[in-house]
């Protein structure tokens, strides 16, 4: 691949991306684009982020050789990039720190955000507490039920959590409400979007803030193995941990990039969240991207056991990487993810987030087809404490 320079000035990755937002938001979106361009070129901005990432978040995170999982899979050597060890327990804080510092530079002290699993909400609430910013989080009513502990966490951190009852009452609807709120409060509020989606510059900005994952991985892997890994694997809802993991490897075409979507009850059923595998291009939440939709262009509700993957779209860059063939997108069902959740807990003493369990599940299958001399790095995007209750209930239901 030649030098990869996407997106273009309009925020397009091929046909995907763009800025499909109401006129009310255009001023804010253009200002954000401008502010981010300036900040990106300012070494003091990056230094400020790096300072917080190292002193507050606890980076760099380890690149851990999962000996027992490797032995179990019986093939390629599996490494885990331990984003679960970040402060707040997931990769989401990498982006929250970057955007909150940018909001401060823009003179905005009020933050609105959406959350699915609650990981982005907790990361945002945390950073707002740290930087003394007002914080309001929209979360689907269904997700509030599934992730009660994270709701309490956000409130403890001083955020206001607003329950969203419209539509499927999950992540998609939380984004709708956060966008509506932003339209009404755009002059003094920054929308701290949690994934590589939404209008430009969010997809590129979130990717850049998350690229610390891939950059560290590349360096750490080289230090341990003296080469590049043959494959990297990450789960995909909106796609932020995958984008951050993939981007530093994108021009290293010898590294295969695998994104893992949620197949829910199966991609041949109506209950999944596999936008890239089963969707088609369309426009939602400010960007042209792959979407789960019916023949009339109405968005279909996504289904996944994992609240963080329960989204009917996927970031524009992933949509482009799918079409271009640079990345390969697979899917893992709820029950496969549950198996991997238990497997990693037992084999490595690491309870993964259900989101990350999708990546683990696929990596085990992939490793079995690869040689022992080859290497896979899996982005373990978050810890599973938040999911323990939901998994317990599900297992008890299945046994009953």
């Amino acid at each position: 691949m030649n030098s990869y320079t996407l997106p273009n000035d309009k925020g397009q990755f091929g046909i995907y991306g763009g800025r499909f937002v109401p006129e009310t938001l255009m001023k804010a979106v253009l200002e954000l684009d401008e502010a981010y361009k300036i900040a990106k070129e300012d070494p003091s901005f990056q230094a400020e982020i790096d300072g917080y990432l190292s002193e507050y978040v606890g980076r760099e995170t380890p690149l851990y050789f999962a000996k027992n999982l490797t032995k179990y899979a019986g093939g390629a050597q599996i490494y885990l990039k331990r984003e679960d060890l970040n402060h707040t327990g997931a990769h989401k804080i990498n982006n929250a720190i970057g955007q909150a510092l940018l909001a401060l530079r823009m003179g905005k002290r009020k933050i609105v955000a959406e959350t699915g699993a609650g990981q982005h909400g907790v990361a945002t609430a945390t950073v707002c507490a740290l930087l003394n910013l007002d914080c309001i989080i929209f979360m689907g009513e269904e997700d509030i039920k599934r992730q009660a502990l994270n709701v309490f966490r956000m409130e403890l951190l001083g955020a206001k959590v607003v329950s969203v009852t419209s539509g499927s009452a999950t992540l998609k609807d939380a984004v709708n409400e956060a966008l509506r709120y932003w339209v009404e409060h755009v002059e003094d509020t920054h929308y701290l979007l949690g994934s590589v989606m939404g209008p430009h510059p969010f997809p590129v900005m979130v990717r850049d803030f998350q690229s610390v994952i891939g950059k560290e991985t590349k360096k750490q892997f080289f230090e341990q193995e003296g080469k590049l890994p043959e494959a990297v694997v990450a789960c995909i809802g909106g796609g932020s941990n995958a984008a951050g993991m993939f981007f530093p490897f994108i021009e290293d075409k010898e590294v295969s990039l695998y994104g893992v979507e949620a197949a829910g009850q199966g991609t041949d059923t109506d209950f999944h969240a596999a936008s890239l595998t089963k969707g088609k291009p369309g426009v939602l939440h400010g960007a042209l991207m792959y979407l789960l939709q019916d023949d009339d262009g109405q968005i279909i509700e996504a289904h996944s056991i994992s609240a963080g993957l329960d989204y009917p779209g996927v970031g524009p860059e992933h949509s482009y990487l799918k079409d271009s063939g640079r990345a390969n997108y697979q899917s893992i069902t709820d029950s496969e993810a549950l198996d991997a959740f238990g497997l990693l807990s037992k084999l490595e003493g690491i309870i993964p987030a259900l989101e990350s369990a999708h990546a683990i599940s696929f990596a085990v299958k992939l490793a079995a087809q690869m040689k022992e001399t080859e290497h896979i790095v899996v982005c373990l995007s978050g810890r599973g404490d938040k999911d323990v209750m939901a998994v317990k209930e599900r297992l008890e239901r299945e046994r009953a």
Partner: protein
Amino acid sequence: MNRIEQSFKALHEQDRKAFIPYIMAGDGGLNILTETLSTLEKFGATLIEVGVPFSDPVADGPTIQQAGIRSLQNGTTLRGIIAELTKAREVVSIPIVLMTYLNPIYSYGISTFAQDIAKAGVDGCIIPDLPIEEEDLLAAELENAGIELIRLVTLTSPRERIKEISSRGKGFLYTVTVKGITGTRTEFDQEVVEFLKKVKEVSPIPVVAGFGISTESQIKELTPHCDGVIVGSKIVDLLNKKDIHGLESFMSVLKPEKNIR
């Protein structure tokens, strides 16, 4: 000159202002669409904005969201709306403008959409999630089909941008009079009036105020500073309640005998 331009020209000659009701197609069933459009024409609508329901209407408040949900539950599709509008055109002579989010159009196929709505007698199209930065996606197709793209300006649009946006169209300029989404508001602040004056100054095409307009007093407050108003949530609400007398009385606010001018 298309139907939209003709309507505004005629109003201007009579020194009157436009009253543009918004309805959600398929709310109450698509089979009542033609009758509803006829009624609104009879009650003095200048032009009718026909909403296409969408699963994720981010620019709309609760009233229109609910109307959209009801419509989708009735099985409404864009294809069905276009078919019904074709029939309605035989009895309705005022301009019809479709208001739809982009994805139903994208899914339908942009050039087929433009041709089909033109054949159905639709005069214009409002796409709330299509800022001018992105209109290359379909502006040419709409123009070739003779469909006017109705653009929006808002309180957050800088003056130069309002100039740019208003210079692109021939129909009218949809001027969003609230910081926010659609829905009823109790009052406007002076900022809105100042904003309308500013837009009126720079716009070469008629300036129509919309979003948050639901009372006679609001309409009287705003119309001296613009060429007309769009009323959405209030109309949707009256139609949903089947309050036809209320609708007639509300829509008479800008009739000549009651006109403030």
